[in-house]
């Protein structure tokens, strides 16, 4: 079987298996059939993973898959760009299905499996369809399938908070989908039954205002889905609410689908992105990442910390994309493709470590029955294997060598330094700002990950749940370990990872219809990625550790370690003496109090009116108005106000309705004649 046949069989096969998984999950009444559904999910993912890897490693040209042209008017096509994202989707969904196999049964009381299993299959199917669509109609349809199924998954546990978060998510997702629909309508001349490639051909004929409008709408659609500031407020609310394997899919893959959409649409329609838009994307990405990484250091729920970290990483991805587009537009294709290489490597690494961290958080939640970081602690003794995997993932997210994300950031820093050599003021200035931002983000990410790992796994447990926790069963911890190993492998093999990236790394290659000239492809490939320096750094780090250990052994021979109880001055040491996660981030909140504005309300009331000395005090501490209060609620208030005005028309008086109809008829006739 050739690679082409494998792809042609594997990708539709994956979709078919997922359809069966959805049906089985819907029909399931007992654990047996549900496990069959999970097995089908996993089988579909494995098939898709193998097919996308085959497409990548064999460097196949864009391939048409079997398609129902009547329904969508355009075939399903897989090219290098979609194969890269398909690899991420199927890899993560495979792990999610493996995890859900056990987690779904154990948490059946919290997340009804008859809802979760079929919706997960539909969710995966939606992402799969978005990646394969070459037509606007099918792209929109699968995009909606992805949004709506994930909306239901967010509120799967049925609590009031989850419903609130899910509705916020739905509002943003539907606004984005509407913007995408209108944007496609503007670009496609009022029709959605066009191919994506055709959207670009009609563009030059449009007036400049329409072009800007279309770009704005498309950019809003994708950036709001990916959680770019200021459209990110839904993300840290919604992602932690879903079952953990779905959180892993949402943070690990769904955000990347939005990145894919932005790459695809801008590659087709705006081969040279206007400078203003590139700069805006870079600025919003970097600014959002800064705010998000600070929030990650303040959040007190593991999954919420991870969600904020996703906002940060996606912000960095958008900053890289913006800078790459800027460099490309100013005639530096090598620089542009190197930064795109860093971006894809980062996307890849983030998918691995974030999915792993979310699955691990699910395993912690499963064992300790709480995700509040202040109630955890001491899990390293109770869950040694899971802790080891989570430590690796936290290091990967920090990002430290030898993991994949470090290689990506290293490549970015190298490229940013290279941009100083271009001598163009704009590039140098933006590069310098980005470099500073990346340094800040890297430091703060280390802080956030140290906080996440230390207060979850180290010291003494701070609640009964954490004290009684035990090692999670193998199906829950193995996917976490596999993802940790994959992240490690990506970091170690980064210098040789370019066949897995959508090379050639030029946006001209991702327009579906026109594969680039072979010469251009070769040049761009040669320009692509990663030096072996991160690896050398990692090796140096490991070497330094080994040397320190050896020196300790050689310089102090025969020194024995005596293990005794910690000296406690006669006061038994317990968890109330521990440094808390809130205390750990207190200096940060202090130094950044202009950004992290918090409102503290102290109220004292006299117990007896005549006695001023004995008082009862209460303190309320809440985060000051964020994006939700400043941006979302005013918009919602405006829409509600308009709705209230429009309600005057619906006053229940039938004569008024008849008069309205008459007026409408007269106006229509007047316009028509």
């Amino acid at each position: 079987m050739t690679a082409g046949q494998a792809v042609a069989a594997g990708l539709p096969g994956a979709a078919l298996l997922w359809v069966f998984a959805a049906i089985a999950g819907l029909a399931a009444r007992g654990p047996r059939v549900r496990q069959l559904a999970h097995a089908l999910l996993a089988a579909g993912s494995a098939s898709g993973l193998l097919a996308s890897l085959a497409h990548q490693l064999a460097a196949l040209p864009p391939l048409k898959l079997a398609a129902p042209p009547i329904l969508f008017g355009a075939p399903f096509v897989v090219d290098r760009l979609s194969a890269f994202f398909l690899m991420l989707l199927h890899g993560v969904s495979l792990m999610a299905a493996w995890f859900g196999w056990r987690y779904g049964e154990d948490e059946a009381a919290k997340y009804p499996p008859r809802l979760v299993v079929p919706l997960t299959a539909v969710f995966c199917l939606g992402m799969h369809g978005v990646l394969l669509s070459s037509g606007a109609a099918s792209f929109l349809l699968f995009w909606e399938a992805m949004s709506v199924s994930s909306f239901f998954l967010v509120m799967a546990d049925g609590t009031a908070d989850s419903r609130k978060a899910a509705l916020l998510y739905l509002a943003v997702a539907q606004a984005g989908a509407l913007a995408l629909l209108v944007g496609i309508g503007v670009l496609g001349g009022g029709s959605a039954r066009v191919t994506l490639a055709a959207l670009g051909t009609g563009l030059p004929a449009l007036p400049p205002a329409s072009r800007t409008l279309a770009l704005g709408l498309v950019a809003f659609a994708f950036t709001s889905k990916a959680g770019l500031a200021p459209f990110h407020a839904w993300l840290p609310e919604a992602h932690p609410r879903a079952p953990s394997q779905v959180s892993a899919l949402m943070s690990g893959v769904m955000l990347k689908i939005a990145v894919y959409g932005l790459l695809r649409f801008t590659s087709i329609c705006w081969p040279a992105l206007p400078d203003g838009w590139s700069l805006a994307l870079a600025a919003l990405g970097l600014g959002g990442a800064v705010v998000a990484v600070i929030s990650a250091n303040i959040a007190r729920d593991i999954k919420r910390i991870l969600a904020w970290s996703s906002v940060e990483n996606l912000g960095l991805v958008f900053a890289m994309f913006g800078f790459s587009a800027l460099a490309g537009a100013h005639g530096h294709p090598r620089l542009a493709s190197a930064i795109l290489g860093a971006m894809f490597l980062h996307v890849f690494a983030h998918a691995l470590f974030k999915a792993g961290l979310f699955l691990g958080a699910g395993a912690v939640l499963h064992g300790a029955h709480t995700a509040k970081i202040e109630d955890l602690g001491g899990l390293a003794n109770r869950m040694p294997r899971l802790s080891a995997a989570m430590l690796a993932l936290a290091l990967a997210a920090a990002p430290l060598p030898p993991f994949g994300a470090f290689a990506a950031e290293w490549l970015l820093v190298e490229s940013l330094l290279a941009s100083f050599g271009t001598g163009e003021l704009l590039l140098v200035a933006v590069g310098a700002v980005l470099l500073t931002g990346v340094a800040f983000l890297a430091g703060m990410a280390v802080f956030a990950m140290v906080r996440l790992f230390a207060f979850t796994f180290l010291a003494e447990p701070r609640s009964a749940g954490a004290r009684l926790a035990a090692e999670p069963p193998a199906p829950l911890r193995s996917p976490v370990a596999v993802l940790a190993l994959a992240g490690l492998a990506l970091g170690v093999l980064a210098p040789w990872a370019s066949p897995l990236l959508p090379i050639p790394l030029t946006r001209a290659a991702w327009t579906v219809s026109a594969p680039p000239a072979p010469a251009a492809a070769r040049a761009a490939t040669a320009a692509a990625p990663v030096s072996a320096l991160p690896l050398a750094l990692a090796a140096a780090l490991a070497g330094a550790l080994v040397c320190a250990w050896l020196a300790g052994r050689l310089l102090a021979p025969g020194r024995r370690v005596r293990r005794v109880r910690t000296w406690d001055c006669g006061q038994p040491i317990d968890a109330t003496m521990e440094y808390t996660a809130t205390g750990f981030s207190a200096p940060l909140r202090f130094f950044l109090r202009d950004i992290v504005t918090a409102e503290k309300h102290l109220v004292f009331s006299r117990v007896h009116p005549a006695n001023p000395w004995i008082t009862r005090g209460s303190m309320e501490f809440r985060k000051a108005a964020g994006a939700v209060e400043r941006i979302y609620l005013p918009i919602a208030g405006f829409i509600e106000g308009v709705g209230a005005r429009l309600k005057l028309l619906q006053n229940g008086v039938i004569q008024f309705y008849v008069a309205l109809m008459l007026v409408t008829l007269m106006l229509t006739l007047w316009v028509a004649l």
Partner: protein
Amino acid sequence: MPLARLLRSSALRPRLVGTGRSPRHLGGDRPAPEDAAALRAIVSGLYGGRSLRIRAVDAGSTNAEELELTALGNAYYDIERLGLSFVASPRHADVLMVTGPVVRNLAGALRATYDAAPSPCIVVAVGDGACTGSIWKGSYAVVGAVDEVIPVHIRIPGDPPSPDDIIRGLAAGLRGAR
């Protein structure tokens, strides 16, 4: 300037009062200059000239030994001049001075203190109670002598031993130490 010298000599210099004899002859308790000198020599030879830190552990004494240990630090005996001092934590201690017969309620604390001290740790049993259990030996409330809980290197008997006895005992006990 004779005037300035006069002012300085009259107002700023410490003035000697009394008979001019050394104050150690005022008391009835005979100090032991030769033992103190021996102990100082031993301590300065022990850790390359560094001082020796003592942690006092009360394992159930009558407080008589504590009074004598406190007296070691006063201006009269002043063991800091010999390179010995009391510290507040076993983590900083080279010597544990244990007093009293070890009562059952403090046996665990004594053990924990010994574990917390860095090794090698010199354990000194101060007083009859710590050395043998004394009149409390065999009581249901006491474990007995200190060496029933942790190893003891030096025993200083007495009920209570005077500060001089303690200095002499330390000097005798540490004489062979290296």
